[in-house]
């Protein structure tokens, strides 16, 4: 897949001297769903805001659909829809008018059929004549999405779309995202919820302290996540993996322990076989622990390493 958004050495230092982005490079493929995970203050929103034109980059280059976001901002921005994290809507205007407004602002002529389609897709058609102030929080979030979709973007940025949203609406939101992907829209979402990234993303990026720590296919990450380790403590610590155990995926652990890595999702984990091989080799077990690296662990470890 070709890249639709290309970010090269992007840095952003605010007037206060705070460096929110440190030479971030990231290529986003056309048609994918990329989830950006990161703790608060990691730079997720700054990254999105810079690509969308709300924040000025300090240095670096960003192109959207091949258009530079500064030199050719009109063409670049026309391709982008943005759903901000905060619910920011004109409270006294009717839903349909705020959506029409967004469409016009992005340079497109009125198209009531498209506006109706978007509102129906988001289950907002019944509320089209309601004032924004009369809507529930979840409904307001849908209005924000409707506004972003009103001008038929090819790239949609969703900044924490399901923060503080109930389970039902979250599922609804995922369905909408899946529909958009089916239409070929590229989606970049930031989230705190690791399950959310797992549920809908194609690739997962982890960002902390203004740096991208990792961008990986979800499948590869999940594979890492599906692996489990068994730490075997022996009566007498060993210096090397004992002879006769070479067929097993064994590594030497700290303090003379052995570490066995296996796939929890495989039909056979090989644990029984290993244990009998161990006793066959005359080794006596003292203790056994197992541990699993979840996406959350990977995430926490990466962020921790970065902080160190």
């Amino acid at each position: 897949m070709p890249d639709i958004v290309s970010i090269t050495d992007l840095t952003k230092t605010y007037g206060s001297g705070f460096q929110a982005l440190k030479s971030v490079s990231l290529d986003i493929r056309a048609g994918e769903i990329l989830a950006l995970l990161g703790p608060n203050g990691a730079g997720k929103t700054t990254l999105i805001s810079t690509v969308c034109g709300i924040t000025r980059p300090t240095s670096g280059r960003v192109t959207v659909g091949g258009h530079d976001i500064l030199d050719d901002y009109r063409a670049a921005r026309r391709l982008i829809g943005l759903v901000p994290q905060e619910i920011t809507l004109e409270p006294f205007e009717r839903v349909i008018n705020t959506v029409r407004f967004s469409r016009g602002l992005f340079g497109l002529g009125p198209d009531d059929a498209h506006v109706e389609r978007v509102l129906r897709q988001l289950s907002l058609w019944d509320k089209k004549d309601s004032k924004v102030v009369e809507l529930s929080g979840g409904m307001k979030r849908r209005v924000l999405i409707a506004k972003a979709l009103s001008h038929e973007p090819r790239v949609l940025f969703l900044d924490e779309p399901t923060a503080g949203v109930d389970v039902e609406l979250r599922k609804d939101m995922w369905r909408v995202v899946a529909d958009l992907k089916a239409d070929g829209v590229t989606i970049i979402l930031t989230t705190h919820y690791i399950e959310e990234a797992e549920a809908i993303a194609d690739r997962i990026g982890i960002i902390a302290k203004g740096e991208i720590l990792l961008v990986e296919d979800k499948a590869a990450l999940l594979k890492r996540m599906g692996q489990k380790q068994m730490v075997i403590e022996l009566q007498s610590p060993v210096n090397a993996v004992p002879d006769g155990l070479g067929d097993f995926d064994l590594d030497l652990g700290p303090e003379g322990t052995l570490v066995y890595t296996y796939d929890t999702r495989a039909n056979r984990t090989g644990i029984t076989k290993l244990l009998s091989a161990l006793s066959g080799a005359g080794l006596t077990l003292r203790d056994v622990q197992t541990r699993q690296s979840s996406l959350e662990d990977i995430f926490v470890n990466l962020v921790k390493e970065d902080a160190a």
Partner: protein
Amino acid sequence: MNLQAVRAIYVFEMARTFRTLLQSIVSPVLSTSLYFVVFGAAIGSRIDEVEGVSYGAFIVPGLMMLSVLQQSVSNAAFGIYFPKFIGTIYELLSAPASFIEITAGYVLAAATKSLMIGLIILATSFAFVDISVQHPLWMLAFLVLTCLSFSLFGFIIGIWAQNFEQLQLVPLLIVTPLVFLGGSFYSISMLPPAWQTVTLFNPVVYLVSGFRWSFFGASDVPVVWSLLAIALFTALCVGVIAWIFRTGYRIRK
């Protein structure tokens, strides 16, 4: 040019005006009527004529200017301040629209509203005084230009303001005194010579003078000066707004 964006902003802002139509119209009509009662009837009855015009009629252009200037500044200031305050400005900043288009949308909407109010005040004044307009086209031209230039000024105030107090500050502390001291209710020739000179530094004098000329054919300063003053003020405001958008002053981090 993204003319759709100008149109979208204009329509959206005018919708706000029409949502609050009653309060938008009732308040200027009421305050104008009060001015006519107090200045026109009560005080004006002791003043015969100013420059050959009955005092009641003489104050009409000044009254219109008073409301139009206040309304232009506060409409445009509120128009751009509100998106900043509630956060919807993100959409303007991320839109494929230049500062010219964004400013045009807000300023045209604010100017339209104050033009409407100016004309409503004129219509109201017909109920109180006998008045005719000598140069109706010039009158309209002065009115439109004033609405536009002061809406530009208001737009700047709206971007500069960081809270509602600041939003009120400039219209209240600067615009109102300038209008009152700008010959709205008197001819500057009625002032002592030293004050006449001071007054010439007040830009509103040129606006009121030119506007009054379009009504009665007499002015405090030459009409050309009035036009020049508006042109200069407009150019200054456009320059400041261009600078604001180039540097992102108080809108783009």
